[in-house]
């Protein structure tokens, strides 16, 4: 008998649906729907009270209209009314409407909660289930507040029907996920764990999801579930295929539950109790054995179910990573699947093997399948499968097979799907670097990468190849020769031009002996690409040109000619124009010695963790890259440059701190000679010029500061000029915690504007000193308590001069550098001390993470000194958008959907300093009623937590 007979529904509804289906056009459909909506609206608003049946019918129509993809903005109230009906059909439609259409922020929740409360206490199992479903579907905080206490009671009560228990378990799980603080398991823990022993398999099925989630969050409290899960699993696995009756699916006993039990066990290490462990190993062996038995049915469902269990068992074996015997069997089993005719199995086998490859017991066994995997990469029709094959090749790569794998991946890249190219490029780049024994191979690989997939080669990749070439003098000549050849191609990618420009600028002399690559030929080759490139690349090329003047004096006049041309010296782009002007000047006034000093070859970069690896990790998202890979990455990165192959650069510091290395490139090489001074900040005045070494830049800066006096009219103010006392304006700096630009200081004479930008552990501050008067400021000097460079000593009335300050954060700090400004205005000495608004948060790198990761990290930082907390009164209006903007300005990532309470804000970020990285998490809980905030900061360093807390307490 059909359970749902087609005739007895609502006739009006069926007619309406038919009407819609008969509509010939979208317009006709919309017209029909609007007509219906108007009809329903009038019925709902009409004087005649509607009976339950009509309400149900109209609500059902609304639901249908909604499911067609149209907006519904009324009917909620009628749906809520249906909840209190004592007719099942009416109640059920009401709940359905609410489950589908009401979101957790609705104002109706209170009314809905009342109806739910009644149904939960009705003792009618059907009504109770409807109510529990509704809670699980909406899952709002208000619902958690109202029912989190009640539901555990229903779940464990002896007289609760099985079907209600099932619903209660999942309902509780949902509430726990949305509001973990409200679901207190304490007294129920043991009874909930014992649901694993329940007679009714459905109850176990529902309960196991709840227990798994709770175990992940509180592993210690729930660890008794391990032995119960093992015995349950063992009973299922050893049962005959008919024992479990309805829970047997195509001759496989309880496959879903088996999978879930195996997943639950993956939350824990191998059982300590020998007997439990023995029983579990027996189960796993049985599962592996069954895979070899002939199938009991030819149906795909049978093999599906059987293999679902098998894959979970293999995951558990890999998770334990302690039974070499089982690991090898698992690997053999997966090896069989690699050639299975079912695509699904090949996919899953590749995926599981990826994790298996990182186990030391099975790495070698996995490697034996390399040919099959390469074949999969080449021949699989399905991109999902090819992607898994590429992942596995990456995972199984080591020194012995790197050349083969990299070659295969490169050739795959030529035809790879666009969606996975960037990731493939990163992987190839990492493998090439990790396993490079022969650096000419490395250079070839990366240049090939740029040639094949230039668009997908990110900055990190080409920065990295340059770092490596600079750090290894045995490969420099080869690199120069190879890029020179690569640049010969008529159409070469801009990234190739960048690499080419940099490398020839540094090492072009190594190949200049060959007349085919004489200095002028090199220059002409580079310059032939110039006009096709973007501004940053052109800027880089200009720097390469000035380096050429130093390397090859014979090119000087040609290059000066180029620099002097209108297209350079009058270029509309400020950066290009400035470079052209400065380089031209430098090349004409500086003596050869000075030139040679300024433009000397870049010194080796300090060795840090590969920025590419960091990028891949970021791309894959937290958790996606296994710890193994991370560790391995560090180890290998150390090997690459610190290894014994060459002693020359072993002075390079090899503390692998995971920070992108492009910094080294962008701002030249940070000086190590300057002593870290007060506030641990190295502040210096110099300007960016691409790859010209910092230490030799003084001359350039000198040139620059003397050339740039920007005259800009400032509104004139008549001022009594008597501000001779020394002003110490320290607190002003606090205004810049959450923003980077603005007016730092202003009085009647002087306005100081600030513009600052930060990247990783480096920052640059532009200070604009504006003379608001009509009179000159003379003997204008600024002194930083750290280190100072002269600024233009004279500011004309109404003019503005600019000063650039570059900053590197060496370690965390709490005192900002002081800037002292002195000048004479009409004879009176003005003295001003300002705190530069450099605060620790400026060096935040935002970190996006999912809720789960956030709380896990939050937990990890639970030592008392790692946390700083402040409760303080709001000093501004508590506007959500303003708060968000401020938190974003702080520099951390503002994480949505992490805190169960939507009112709260949580942020995560990493402070980048040269010495270390400090991960920080923040939680801000506004209390609108009390106009108070509670701010909690946790970070891996106590001084940082404290300082952040102090800084922020002033901001809201």
């Amino acid at each position, binding site marked *: 008998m059909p359970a749902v007979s087609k005739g007895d529904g609502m*006739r009006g509804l069926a007619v309406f649906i038919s009407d819609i289906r008969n509509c010939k056009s979208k317009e006709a459909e919309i017209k029909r729907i609007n007509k219906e909506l108007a009809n329903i609206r009038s019925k709902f608003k009409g004087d005649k009270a509607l009976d339950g049946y009509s309400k149900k019918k109209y609500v059902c129509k609304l639901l249908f209209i909604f499911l067609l993809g149209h907006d519904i903005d009324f009917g909620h109230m009628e749906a809520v009314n249906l909840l209190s009906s004592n007719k099942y059909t009416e109640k059920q439609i009401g709940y359905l409407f609410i489950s589908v259409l009401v979101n957790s922020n609705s104002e109706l929740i209170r009314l809905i909660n009342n109806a739910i409360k009644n149904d939960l206490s009705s003792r009618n199992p059907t009504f109770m289930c409807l109510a529990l479903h509704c809670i699980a579907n909406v899952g709002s905080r208000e619902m958690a507040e109202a029912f989190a206490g009640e539901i555990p009671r229903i779940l464990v009560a002896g007289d609760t029907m099985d079907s209600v228990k099932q619903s209660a378990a999942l309902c509780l799980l949902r509430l726990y996920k949305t509001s973990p603080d409200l679901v207190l398991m304490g007294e129920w823990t043991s009874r909930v764990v014992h649901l694993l022993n329940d007679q009714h398999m459905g109850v176990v099925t529902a309960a196991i999801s709840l227990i798994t989630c709770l175990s992940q969050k509180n592993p210690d409290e729930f660890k008794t579930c391990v032995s119960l899960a093992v015995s349950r699993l063992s009973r299922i696995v050893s049962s005959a295929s008919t024992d479990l009756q309805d829970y047997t699916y195509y001759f496989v006993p309880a496959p879903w539950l088996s999978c879930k039990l195996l997943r639950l066990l993956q939350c824990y290490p191998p059982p300590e109790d020998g007997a439990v462990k023995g029983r579990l190993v027996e189960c796993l062996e049985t599962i592996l054995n069954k895979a070899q038995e002939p199938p009991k049915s030819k149906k795909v469902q049978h093999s599906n179910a059987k293999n679902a269990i098998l894959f979970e068992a293999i995951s558990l074996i890999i998770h334990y990573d302690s039974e070499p015997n089982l690991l090898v069997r698992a690997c053999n089993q997966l090896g069989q699947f690699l050639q299975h005719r079912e695509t699904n199995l090949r996919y899953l086998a590749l995926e599981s093997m990826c994790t298996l490859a990182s186990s030391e017991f099975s790495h070698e066994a996995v490697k034996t399948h390399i040919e099959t995997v390469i074949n999969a990469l080449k021949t699989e029709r399905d991109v999902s499968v090819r992607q898994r094959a590429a992942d596995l090749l990456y995972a199984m790569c080591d020194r012995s097979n790197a050349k083969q794998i990299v070659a295969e991946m490169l050739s795959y890249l030529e035809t790879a799907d666009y969606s996975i190219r960037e990731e493939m490029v990163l992987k190839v780049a990492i493998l090439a670097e990790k396993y490079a024994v022969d650096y000419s191979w490395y250079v070839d690989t990366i240049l090939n990468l740029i040639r094949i997939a230039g668009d997908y080669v990110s900055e990190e990749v080409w920065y990295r190849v340059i770092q490596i070439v600079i750090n290894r003098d045995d490969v420099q000549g080869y690199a120069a020769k190879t890029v020179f050849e690569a640049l010969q191609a008529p159409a070469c990618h801009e990234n190739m031009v960048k690499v080419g420009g940099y490398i020839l600028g540094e090492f072009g002399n190594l190949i200049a002996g060959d007349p085919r690559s004489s200095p002028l030929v090199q220059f002409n080759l580079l310059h032939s690409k110039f006009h096709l490139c973007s501004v940053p690349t052109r800027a880089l090329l200009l720097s390469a040109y000035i380096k050429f003047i130093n390397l090859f004096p014979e090119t000087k006049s040609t290059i000066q000619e180029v620099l002097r041309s209108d297209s350079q010296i009058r270029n509309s782009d400020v950066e290009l124009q400035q470079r052209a002007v400065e380089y031209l000047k430098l090349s004409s006034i500086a003596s050869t010695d000075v030139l040679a000093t300024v433009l000397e070859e870049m010194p080796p970069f300090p060795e840090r963790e590969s920025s590419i690896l960091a990028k891949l990790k970021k791309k894959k998202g937290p958790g996606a890259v296994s710890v193994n890979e991370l560790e391995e990455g560090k180890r290998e990165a150390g090997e690459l440059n610190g290894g014994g192959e060459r002693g020359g650069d072993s002075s390079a510091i090899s503390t692998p701190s995971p920070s992108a290395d492009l910094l080294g490139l962008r701002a030249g090489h940070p000086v190590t000679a300057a002593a870290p001074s007060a506030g641990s900040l190295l502040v210096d005045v110099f300007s960016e010029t691409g790859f010209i070494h910092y230490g030799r830049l003084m001359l350039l800066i000198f040139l620059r500061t003397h050339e740039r006096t920007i005259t800009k009219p400032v509104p004139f103010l008549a001022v009594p000029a008597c501000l001779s006392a020394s002003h110490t304006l320290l607190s002003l700096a606090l205004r810049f915690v959450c923003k980077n630009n603005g007016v730092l200081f202003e009085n009647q004479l002087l306005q100081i504007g600030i513009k600052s930008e930060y990247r990783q552990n480096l920052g640059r501050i532009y200070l604009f000193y504006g003379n608001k008067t009509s009179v000159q400021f003379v003997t204008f000097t600024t002194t930083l308590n750290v280190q100072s460079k002269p600024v233009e000593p004279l500011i004309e009335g109404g003019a503005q001069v600019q000063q650039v300050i570059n900053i590197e954060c060496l370690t965390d700090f709490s005192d900002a550098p002081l800037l002292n400004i002195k000048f004479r205005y009409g004879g009176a000495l003005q003295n001003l001390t300002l705190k530069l608004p450099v605060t620790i948060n400026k060096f935040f790198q935002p970190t996006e993470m999912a809720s789960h990761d956030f709380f896990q990290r939050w937990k990890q930082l639970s030592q008392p000194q790692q946390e700083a907390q402040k409760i303080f009164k709001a000093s501004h209006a508590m506007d959500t958008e303003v708060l968000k903007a401020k938190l974003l300005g702080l520099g951390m990532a503002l994480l949505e959907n992490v805190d169960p309470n939507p009112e709260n804000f949580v942020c995560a970020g990493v402070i980048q300093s040269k010495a270390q990285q400090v991960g920080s998490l923040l939680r801000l809980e506004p209390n609108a009623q009390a106009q108070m905030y509670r701010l909690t900061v946790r970070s891996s360093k106590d001084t940082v937590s404290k300082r952040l807390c102090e800084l922020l307490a002033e901001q809201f």
Partner: protein
Amino acid sequence: MIKAILIFNNHGKPRMSKFYEHYTEDTEQQIIRETFHLVSKRDENICNFLEGGLLIGGSDNKLIYRHYATLYFVFCVDSSESELGILDLIQVFVETLDKCFENVCELDLIFHVDKVHNILAEMVMGGMVLETNMSEIITQVEAQGKMEKSEVRAAPLSYLLEF
């Protein structure tokens, strides 16, 4: 956890959608379109898993789908679910629909979307699996059907004629 369950036909017309995480209506419609786009361009007989679309979480989530005649059944799940297990679950869902509607076809889903939701609710709740045993699910649905019938019978005859 199951993030969403979508049923649409070969032309991408949604026949049922159930989201277990909150999205705006617009996003829901976009997710359906994106998912259809991802799934429909795939050949038959290749694997039934693929990475989720960007809207629903990208590579952290998987789409697991089956194609039956004119309909696609797509489950979007996170990494805590067994892929093959979900594939079986889809089969159970479809077999259950088939029993409840006697040879289910696309029209049944159109005219009885509320019942489809009810059947699904017996299997999945808040994104977690409640019951996998088909006869148990059918028993529950039948019990509801009986209640419904008795209530309809009790209603005045005019309701059946009126619109």
